[in-house]
């Protein structure tokens, strides 16, 4: 059956619009600030037999790009045993059933058209709490997922349109603020009502057959687009390796090693040389590992429309002997937020060697999760959840962005004034972190600095971050960005956690404080080739110091801080030029030399 170009364009627009309207409804009606302020949500339409993605809303988090496909697959396999009927709605948060971390709660609804299953709608959103030992769920010391919160396998919350109150009661009995979570549940369902109604209208207008044919063609087109990009890359192997600081329990790095083999318009992503499963919560489930790869490809080739076709040319080798394909009951709280980013980093790193004009130097690469929970001085429980961005990498066409949201995310930061109003904290400083961007012809973007003081009541803090030991990497002669750092002041004593970026259940007293330093992005290209005027601007704006201008960029700025000493600059840059002829700069940012020994640590 042929579909004319006009119908194809219209149906495609309609499918994307349906997913977008579902996003809008979930975002506006949710109680979880992560969902409504942070866009920590996703909505989409999925294939009735395979669960493959047909369309997904554009407001959701990038890491959810492929995840719900795996969630829907899990529901389909449950349905094959117990049947799927009109009016059913599934709920599931099991990381091992196409999930992420337990806090991301997913819903799946079959849509029947004229009595026949047409597609699944699915959505998910981050609930601020799903029970477990740590308020907010980001514990760093769990050794089994059972400590991390309530685990819900794919079960029917609604059966033929009837609410299964028993399931609901079990869920609400396991969370800290059940009223709000009930409100969230209504928000997820409201999005389904919108999606179902609009999808049926589309089918009324064009007919099941035409819409199905459009879906097939759209999938084929996306596949063709990805294939043509990959065909443009020279066949061969492209490698990259990077590390996580630790798993939160054992203080040794975890290695992520990727060999990407491009052949004939396909890519094989081989992670088999990565570290084995770990004891702490930095294990990654396969659905997250794959989605992290998908989103990395999307960042490099952003114009390909999202459906299952665009990822068909990718295949994977992620054995269960690695921490990137963990099995129950390994704990996974850091998988969606932290490990996923490093997986994306190495995929973009390897692609950067193949298509350098599309890639950038290293990106800050951590969510910097900070949660404080306890009882408020004015009464009642609270869970405060804050996370912070960092610098993006410099790239061929310009500097990295200052303080952006993570590659896997589009979550917006919450205002300082809201934190101070709602929680017993005062934020003394929220600023650009001077000098944190990697030097380069195109400088890395800068990270941030946050000082937070605890004012009263009870408070227990947990931090789950990364990049404390392994910096965002510079590329093509650019320098690395600054590492992540965390400092506490407890009882007037400075305290740095042994794992640097991970700490759980630290009890706070009034007057105690926490300082976070988020990483900057890596630099791109030789900093000695950076335009002198831009270096001067950076000094004027205190993004870099005068000393750094001289040492890292070979630009001498007069003591008044407003003028370039051209003569001295010429001398500095010439001396460096002579040195470079003798000892050429390394090419792409492979693991810097000081990191050479780390392989042994992971074993």
């Amino acid at each position: 059956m042929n579909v004319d170009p006009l119908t194809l364009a219209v149906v495609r627009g309609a499918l994307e619009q349906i997913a977008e309207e579902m996003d809008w409804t979930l975002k506006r009606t949710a109680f979880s600030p992560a969902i409504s302020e942070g866009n920590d949500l996703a909505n989409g339409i999925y294939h009735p037999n395979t669960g493959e993605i047909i369309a997904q809303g554009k407001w959701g988090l990038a890491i959810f790009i492929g995840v719900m496909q795996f969630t829907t697959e899990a529901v389909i396999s449950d349905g094959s045993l117990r049947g799927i009927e009109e009016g059913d709605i599934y709920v599931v948060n099991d990381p091992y059933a196409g999930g992420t971390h337990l806090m991301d709660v997913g819903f799946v609804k079959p849509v029947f058209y004229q009595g026949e299953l047409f597609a699944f709608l699915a959505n998910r959103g981050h609930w601020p709490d799903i029970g477990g030992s740590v308020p907010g769920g980001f514990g760093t010391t769990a050794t089994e997922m059972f400590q991390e919160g309530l685990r819900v396998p794919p079960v029917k919350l609604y059966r033929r349109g009837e609410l299964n109150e028993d399931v609901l009661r079990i869920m609400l009995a396991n969370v800290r603020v059940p009223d709000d979570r009930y409100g969230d549940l209504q928000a997820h369902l409201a999005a389904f009502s919108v999606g179902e109604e609009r999808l049926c209208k589309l089918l009324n207008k064009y007919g099941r057959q035409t819409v199905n044919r459009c879906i097939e063609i759209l999938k084929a087109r996306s596949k063709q687009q990805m294939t043509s990009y990959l065909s443009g890359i020279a066949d061969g192997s492209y490698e990259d390796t990077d590390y996580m600081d630790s798993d939160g329990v054992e203080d040794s790095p975890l290695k992520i090693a990727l060999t990407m083999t491009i052949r004939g318009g396909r890519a094989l992503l081989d992670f088999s040389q990565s570290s084995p499963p770990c004891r702490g919560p930095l294990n990654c489930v396969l659905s997250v590992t794959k989605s992290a790869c998908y989103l990395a490809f999307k960042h490099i080739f952003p114009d390909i429309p999202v459906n299952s076709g665009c990822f068909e040319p990718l295949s994977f080798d992620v054995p269960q002997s690695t921490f990137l394909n963990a099995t129950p009951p390994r704990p996974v709280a850091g998988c969606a937020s932290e490990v996923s980013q490093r997986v994306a980093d190495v995929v973009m790193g390897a692609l950067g060697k193949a298509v350098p004009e599309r890639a950038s130097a290293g990106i800050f690469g951590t969510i910097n999760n900070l949660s404080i929970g306890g009882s408020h001085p004015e009464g009642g429980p609270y869970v405060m959840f804050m996370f912070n961005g960092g610098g993006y990498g410099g790239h061929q066409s310009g500097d990295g962005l200052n303080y952006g949201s993570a590659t896997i995310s589009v979550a917006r930061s919450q205002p300082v004034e809201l934190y101070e109003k709602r929680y017993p904290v005062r934020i003394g400083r929220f600023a650009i972190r001077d000098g944190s961007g990697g030097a380069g012809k195109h400088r890395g973007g800068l990270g941030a600095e946050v000082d937070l003081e605890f004012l009263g009541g009870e408070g227990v803090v947990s931090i789950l971050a990364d990049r404390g030991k392994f910096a965002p990497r510079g590329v093509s002669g650019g320098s690395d960005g600054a590492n992540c750092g965390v400092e506490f002041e407890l009882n007037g004593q400075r305290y740095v956690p042994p794992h640097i970026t991970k700490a759980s259940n630290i009890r706070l007293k009034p007057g105690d404080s926490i300082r976070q330093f988020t990483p900057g992005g890596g630099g791109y290209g030789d900093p000695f080739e950076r335009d002198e005027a831009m270096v001067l601007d950076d000094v004027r704006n205190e993004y870099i110091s005068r000393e750094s201008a001289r040492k890292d960029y070979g630009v001498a700025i007069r003591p008044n801080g407003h003028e370039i000493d051209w003569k001295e600059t010429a001398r500095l840059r010439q001396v460096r030029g002579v040195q470079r002829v003798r000892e050429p700069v390394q090419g792409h940012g492979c693991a810097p030399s000081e990191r050479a020994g780390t392989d042994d640590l992971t074993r």
Partner: protein
Amino acid sequence: MRTSIRVGVDVGGTFTDLVTYDASTGHLQVAKVPSDPSDQSRGMMHGLDVMRTEMPSVDLVVHGTTIATNAVLERTGAACGLITTTGFRDVLDLRRRDRPDTYGLKGYFAPLVSRNCRVEVHERMDAAGNVLLDPCDQDVVAAARELQKRGVDVIIVSFLNSYVNPANEQKAKRILEDVWTNQYIVVASEILPEIREFERTSTAVINGYVMVLLDRYLQSMMNRLTERGYNRDVLLTQGNGGLMSQDTARRYPVNTVLSGPAAGVIAAQHIGTLVGEQNLITCDVGGTSLDIAVVEQGQSGTTRETSLEYGLPMRTTMLDIRSIAAGGGSIAWIDGGGILQIGPHSAGADPGPACYGKGGQDPTVTDANLVLGRIGLSNPIGRGESWSFDKERAEWVINDTIASPLDLSVIDAAWAILEVANQRIANSIRMLTVERGYDPRDFVLVAYGGAGPLHACSILNEIQTAKALIPPWPGVTSALGCIIADVRHDFIQMVDRRLDDIRILELYDVFEDHAEQGKRRIAHERVQVESIDFVYQADVSYDGQMYEVLVHLPVEPCTHDDIRRAFEQAYAMTYGHILNDRPIRVMTLRTAVIGVRPGIDLFGPTVTRSRTDKDALKEHRPVYFEQGFKECPVYDRDRLPPKSSLLGPAIVEQGDATTVIEPNMVAEVDVRGNLIIRHGH
């Protein structure tokens, strides 16, 4: 001298539109002249010349200007300095951590105030409004000296938590007033007394950034008008659809941002009221963008969330107008997957669509309309009679870029471009109506802008409104809005408390205080108003949600139950459900104080009227519709008599727009000269 003429002037990117209305005769005149981007008042003077307006007989000039919007978008505003709380000078740099696109990691952002012009002073307010530390003279003076040294003209003060208690900002302002050498001092809590430090600072900075340019512009414009014998005030249009005096505009120039589309909605609303229609969907299709708004019960909604571009949010009260990049100049292209796409890129005014023959290489929606015969060859908007479109060129680029790759004929490709563009427009309208619980069948579509009337019938078909209305001068609607609009001032106050914990009279104290402020401002502006109206509204949510819905409250104090019921009704309408037993929270109170201006009763063109529609018939030409080309009558709108009725297919041409009437639709001319289109039987 008798002064009875009102002049409305709206400056757009390509054209300056003027409307004059003589209250004593009811005579209305319109003109469209090219804009002069280097000095917007030149286009204004040119237009006044064209219309031979006697300035001494003018009662009032109302002006819509894009000076402020352009200054931000083109980064030509003043050198600004920002004074913040210690630890927070980077609030602009840090934004809300967003990036321009979900996918792709190459964002670029430069704040309106560079970091070396942002200075911190020691001061601190806590979240409850207690002064922990007040700013000392010495610090503030030192900050001002520092900024002066860096060549700053405008100083903006924005302290943390100033929304709850502005005392520290006020103290800093008093200190600055003694040392700062000009009047350009902006205090954030005076511009926006609302939580969220980034948005508040950003709004205040935009206000400061455009202040000097607007001030100078108003001065030079006034000089030109004075030379011509005009000695009254000029009012300016605001994004909220209301007018303000020059003095107010000089203090709150941010309120002029995006005022053009708002004035258009006001005009559409007025025309709707005159024909007895209270529920409208307004649809302004221009060269690069489409602006949509919903008018319900004669009132258009307002919004407080706008972003001028990436990283530049502003929170002022504006009419809720959704703007999408789809207009006559939108470019058609084929994406990597071989699928036809329209926009968001536009050919703009220069080079413009391919058929302008000014070097445009890309096919646009206008080119498609031309190829399909929907636009006449010799009816270009705002151009001389001798000018004519290059149809061959349009066919050539459509063939080359769209038809050949998709294996379609040129005509089929042009049709596909038009249909996909219409779908985009319809989808956007659906998002604002159906998705908010409105049934389009209860609404009238008002289509205007240069390209609106071309697409009105397709939109009518797609979203099934009751009918479509094409105003008499669809191309100058914003200028018309200038002479119709009322004076309006908006006030907000954060509350952020559970409804159960509030005494109703506390709420009404706030409303009444706002009302007093508004009345004083209007009195101070010395604009003639017939009466003053008040609109009381509140942003309300379920306790714990982050997004509120807007709830209308009566002017007389009501009960808790009334507020809850009004909220539940609004919530259910938007989202389709309510949550029982959940407490609700009142977030913000909003008051609009409206100085109602003397009314205008608009009648259509007073140019020569024919006796029958036959006299208005210009020609027949082939025009493409879904069923293929049809020989189609073309009418001259200016000559169509009232009450005449045209059965589609038909084309109606006028100086500033072309209306397409699809087969099986009927268009009637009402007594005011509006075209009312509905499905025939």
